[in-house]
């Protein structure tokens, strides 16, 4: 089932939580809603579930407007951050609960519940109470309960945030496997960019109730539409250098007090941007250390952080701090002053006022 948001807004006490959202999700696609807390991602999910009603606009499931449909009329499955298992029901009864509500005969619903339990490897725990399960097992129950009625849409509300790292990785793989196997349209809400990047086919980045960018993970990372996306994606975050875009002779240059960066002919920006205050954005792995000053930025070493295979170098270019990824070997005998040579393909130019990426 494909899903469409058409100019959907949601206000709480006249405060806009979602501001005319437009979003289309293909049938069988796995998308993630990613953003900092308070960005409106959970509100969006609640509207999909039917637990919140949009203030304006329409939500389509296929060709049907579902604004006024109750959750039970939507055939959706949902996994909550708290798992929300029914504490007075056994694992099997928990999984069979949605079928019971559909008045499926007892024998059949228990058989179907057992089938789904097997899918998430829970067959040994069917008679236990939720309080007797570990966090990972509880989450499997929640997933099984969401899948048992063969929903058209699966909603995941930060489902991994209560698990430890190892378990998290396992569950990510497993959820992805199930999603591909069952071909269910799935929406994941998370604040963890790594999780969104690993699991989703496309990621919508939300901030202040608006979608900043909706693209496949690699595009978000390599072609961020604006400062927010560029800053939000990637760890360590992208480096930003403030300067002014000017013309020197026939060359386009960004200048600051302590450095300058010249564009090649192919990479030059349209004339109309000349004179603007801009931010250069360069990722930590797209800066190389060199001793030559030509086309490079002068830097002063501040600190080293060892991560095992790689080292993060913290350095200062003028008044601005940057991070650089280097090999262990290089980091060991670094002089205090050196130059950083940016990979031209990885240099983005953002308008300081609007945050827009001018180099796309």
């Amino acid at each position: 089932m494909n899903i469409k948001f058409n100019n959907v807004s949601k206000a709480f006490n006249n405060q806009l939580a979602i501001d005319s959202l437009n979003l289309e999700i293909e049938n069988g696609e796995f998308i993630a809603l990613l953003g900092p807390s308070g960005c409106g991602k959970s509100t969006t999910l609640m509207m999909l579930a039917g637990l919140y009603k949009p203030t304006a606009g329409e939500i389509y499931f296929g060709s049907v407007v579902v604004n006024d449909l109750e959750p039970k009329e939507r055939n959706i499955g949902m996994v909550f951050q708290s798992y929300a298992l029914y504490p007075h029901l056994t694992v099997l009864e928990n999984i069979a609960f949605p079928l019971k509500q559909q008045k499926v005969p007892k024998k059949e619903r228990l058989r179907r519940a057992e089938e789904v339990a097997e899918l998430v490897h829970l067959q040994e725990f069917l008679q236990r109470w939720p309080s007797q399960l570990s966090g990972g097992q509880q989450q499997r129950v929640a997933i099984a309960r969401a899948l048992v009625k063969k929903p058209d849409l699966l909603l995941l509300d930060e489902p991994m945030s209560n698990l430890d790292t190892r378990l998290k990785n396992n569950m990510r793989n497993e959820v992805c496997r199930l999603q591909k196997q069952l071909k269910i349209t799935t929406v994941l809400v998370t604040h963890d960019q790594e999780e969104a990047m690993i699991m989703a086919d496309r990621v919508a980045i939300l901030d202040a109730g608006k979608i900043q960018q909706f693209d496949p993970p690699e595009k978000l990372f390599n072609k961020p539409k604006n400062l927010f996306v560029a800053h939000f994606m990637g760890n360590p975050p992208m480096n930003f250098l403030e300067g002014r875009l000017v013309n020197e002779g026939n060359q386009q240059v960004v200048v600051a007090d302590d450095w300058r960066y010249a564009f090649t002919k192919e990479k030059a920006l349209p004339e109309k941007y000349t004179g603007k205050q801009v931010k250069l954005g360069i990722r930590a792995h797209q800066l190389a250390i060199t001793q030559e000053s030509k086309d490079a930025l002068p830097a002063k070493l501040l600190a080293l952080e060892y991560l095992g295979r790689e080292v993060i170098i913290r350095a200062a270019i003028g008044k601005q701090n940057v991070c650089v990824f280097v090999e262990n070997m290089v980091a060991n005998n670094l002089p205090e002053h050196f130059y950083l040579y940016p990979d031209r393909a990885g240099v983005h130019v953002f308008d300081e006022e609007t945050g827009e990426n001018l180099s796309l």
Partner: protein
Amino acid sequence: MKRWFLPYLMLSPFLILVVMFYVIPAFITVMLAFTDMNYAMEWRFAGLVNFEKIFTDPFLPVIVWNTCKYVGGTLFFNVVFGFVLALLSTYYIQHEKSGIFFRALWMLPRISPPVVYVLLFLWFFAPGQYGLLNALSAIFLGVEPQNWLSEYAMLIVILANGFVGASFGMIIFSSAIRAIPQDIFRAAKVDGATEFAITKEIILPLMKWPVMFVSVWQLLSLLTSFEYILLLTGGGPFLDTEVWSLYSYHRAFVGFEFGYGAALALVMVFTAFFLTALMLKLFDFNRMIKSSRID
């Protein structure tokens, strides 16, 4: 020695009060039960005479039956009505202030003195054409005035007690319903449950512990309290609303058979112990205290 001496010294005023007003009266009651003390106030031990008398008392079957009707009826009314009030004011009225206002209304009989409250009931059910219920039914149904208090004495006693007592269950149940995480209700809605199914399959099963607590608590207080009956009907007409505790009071302080009254009270205490144990068994108390069921 010093280590325990000071704490006991500090506690002693309170301990003395407890001993004077709780322990000694209980002890005296037990002693009295084995005497045939009457208005002459003489201690004369008479062995088990009083207990023999209880089991041959011609009024006993009526008193026991009244007690069962009163306690059972009021308890049922309290728990069911208290649950309905809690459900309405916490789950169905999601607006917090309205819910609190609604609950506060039901607390009013608790903070008004029983005598005033009972007077209102008496006025409402008064016989003759000036009773409120009679006046209303004359206007709307054109029915002759009735003597409600003698006709439906036990029912009115149960209602009067039930309306006061329901607020206790209401408070306990509302906080228990509030303790259920919102996500559980959301999950149930997404899982396709109707409001009725949520009430029946989610809220009600999670109320097992509070229902047990309210039932046991109310059972004990209903067995021993009789002030509303005393004020409303005085046990009458005839013996229609005479329950065990009231009977014990009547025999002791109206008939001045202190020994017999004490024996009746003693039997009631053991009945209360027995019923409490039975209820704990019924609700599977041991399993319930093992782990919290809402986490």
